[in-house]
């Protein structure tokens, strides 16, 4: 296991060296969203929850998903461009361990960014409290790993930055925007509400928001079932992609 942890430590070191891009950039984006929505939605609420707290928790969930996906995705593309992917091919680490090491580093970055974002911004959100801390930890760990594994899948698959940026822009971002980050999905017209109900990011955001402020717009059991099933699917996909791509010379 030393092997896998060394790779994990290297990937953590990598994002720590690029704090401005990896940690502060998503926090700045979040603060800008909050500033805009804070003005627009002042005094609005969804049930007992202020709209700002609703968006705030959605944005935190978005950070987790984005960080999870970007960290391994771009690290692997850089490694391919440099030729450093050969390090993964020749070292005696099993394919799934390579994927998990990258996913764990993604989770670490997600947690780090999340903690910093909460620390810097929670003071501006009135009446917010932590509703279910243990569940929050479980959701953060599972979701961070889940999107880390998805990042590994696309990082291994993509031949260059363009392909990965394409996935981020045309797949991940629409999924995030249809996940109920900025509004309850029940407010959406058909067929978007149905599409959102099958969107795995929605269930991550839903669980995250519930454990943070106690609000849910989809039954928790459904969201847990989705998150756990999708995590297993992403793991299988990740392992398959790692075996396939690490066994061939990088083009």
């Amino acid at each position, binding site marked *: 296991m*030393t*092997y896998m*942890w*060394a*790779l994990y*430590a*290297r990937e953590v*070191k*990598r994002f720590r*060296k*690029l704090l401005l891009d990896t940690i502060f950039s998503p926090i700045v984006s979040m603060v800008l969203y909050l500033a805009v929505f804070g003005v627009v939605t002042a005094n609005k609420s969804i049930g007992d929850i202020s709209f700002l707290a609703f968006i705030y928790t959605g944005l935190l969930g978005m950070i987790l998903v984005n960080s999870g996906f970007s960290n391994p995705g771009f690290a692997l593309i850089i490694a391919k461009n*440099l*030729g*450093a992917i*050969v*390090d993964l*091919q*020749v*070292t*005696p*680490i*099993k394919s799934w361990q390579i994927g998990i090491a990258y996913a764990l580093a993604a989770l670490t970055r997600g947690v780090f960014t999340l903690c910093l974002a909460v620390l810097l911004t929670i003071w501006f959100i009135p009446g917010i409290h932590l509703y279910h801390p243990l569940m929050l930890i479980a959701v953060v760990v599972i979701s961070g790993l889940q999107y880390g594994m998805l990042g590994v899948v696309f990082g291994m698959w993509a031949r260059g930055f363009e392909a990965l940026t394409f996935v981020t822009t045309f797949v991940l971002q629409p999924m995030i925007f249809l996940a109920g980050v900025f509004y309850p999905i029940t407010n959406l017209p058909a067929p978007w509400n149905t599409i959102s109900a099958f969107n795995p990011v929605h269930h991550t955001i839903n669980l995250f928001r519930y454990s943070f402020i106690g609000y849910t717009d989809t039954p928790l059991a459904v969201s847990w079932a989705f998150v756990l099933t999708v995590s297993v699917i992403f793991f299988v996909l990740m392992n398959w992609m790692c075996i396939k791509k*690490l*066994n*061939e*010379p990088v083009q």
Partner: protein
Amino acid sequence: MQAALRVDKASKTYRSSNRQPFKAVNQVSLEIQSGQIYGLLGPNGAGKSTLIGMISGAAKPDPETGAIEIFGHSVINDREAAKRLLGIVPQEIVVEPAFTVEEVLYYFSGMYGVPSRERGPRIKAALDSLGLLDKLNEKARTLSGGMKRRLMIAKAILHQPKLLILDEPTAGVDVALRQRIWELVRELNRSGTTIIFTTHYLEEAEQLCESMTVINKGQVIKQGRVRDIQQEFSQNLISFELFDRDVEHLPGVRAIGTMFEYVYSDLSVDMSRILAHYSGNIKTIHNESASLEKVFLELTEGKA
């Protein structure tokens, strides 16, 4: 004695963009005994790097491949155990731009299972032997080409592999560094590491290797002890140089660079014939030992 590397009928087929199959390595077999410095020679595109890729795990062999084993461990079925015994210096210089020299080596050796407490001393020892100790805390990207090459070697030896593959490690380095790398290779070999060396500098193979395999167009075209191969190619050869090259030549005489060669059947008779034919035009003449370079050219150009 156990073979350090056994390759049995290894093949690798690529499909080009028009889906035409291309066999980069075709039924290559070789066996390298433990403790050797072994040369792997071949022109560009011969299939050397693909073969090394298959040995190191960077390229999956075709299903019909018989076996590829490192000290008895199959790289196909027992990958991790086989990889632990192998160190590889790839042809391409690859450095992580974000990391210092120490960080590159620290994490990479960890990925080979070197315990963290042992990494520091091993890194310092390796860098010291390669003359890079003073660069320990510098960003790897700021090193010169030769230094990066040495860093690649340091990466490959930190986990103390039993089999080390160096894929053209002296390409683009100056003469002094080349000598230093040769010395390091000999030193590693003396300490028990089996070494496979691919190179375009044939004098290197001549200087370092006991045995070699020559590959061309994905196939083995010659295999054996370097000295035997040289002898085989020098058995019936008279080599001579002329003052005036534009003369009528004896049948069977061929030009090789500035020299001319003649394959003889009886040394004294044929030597007399050449001396009589060219008489005062001969600058030098001898019955020479073939250089590896000549053997290589003959083999890869299909004259053997």
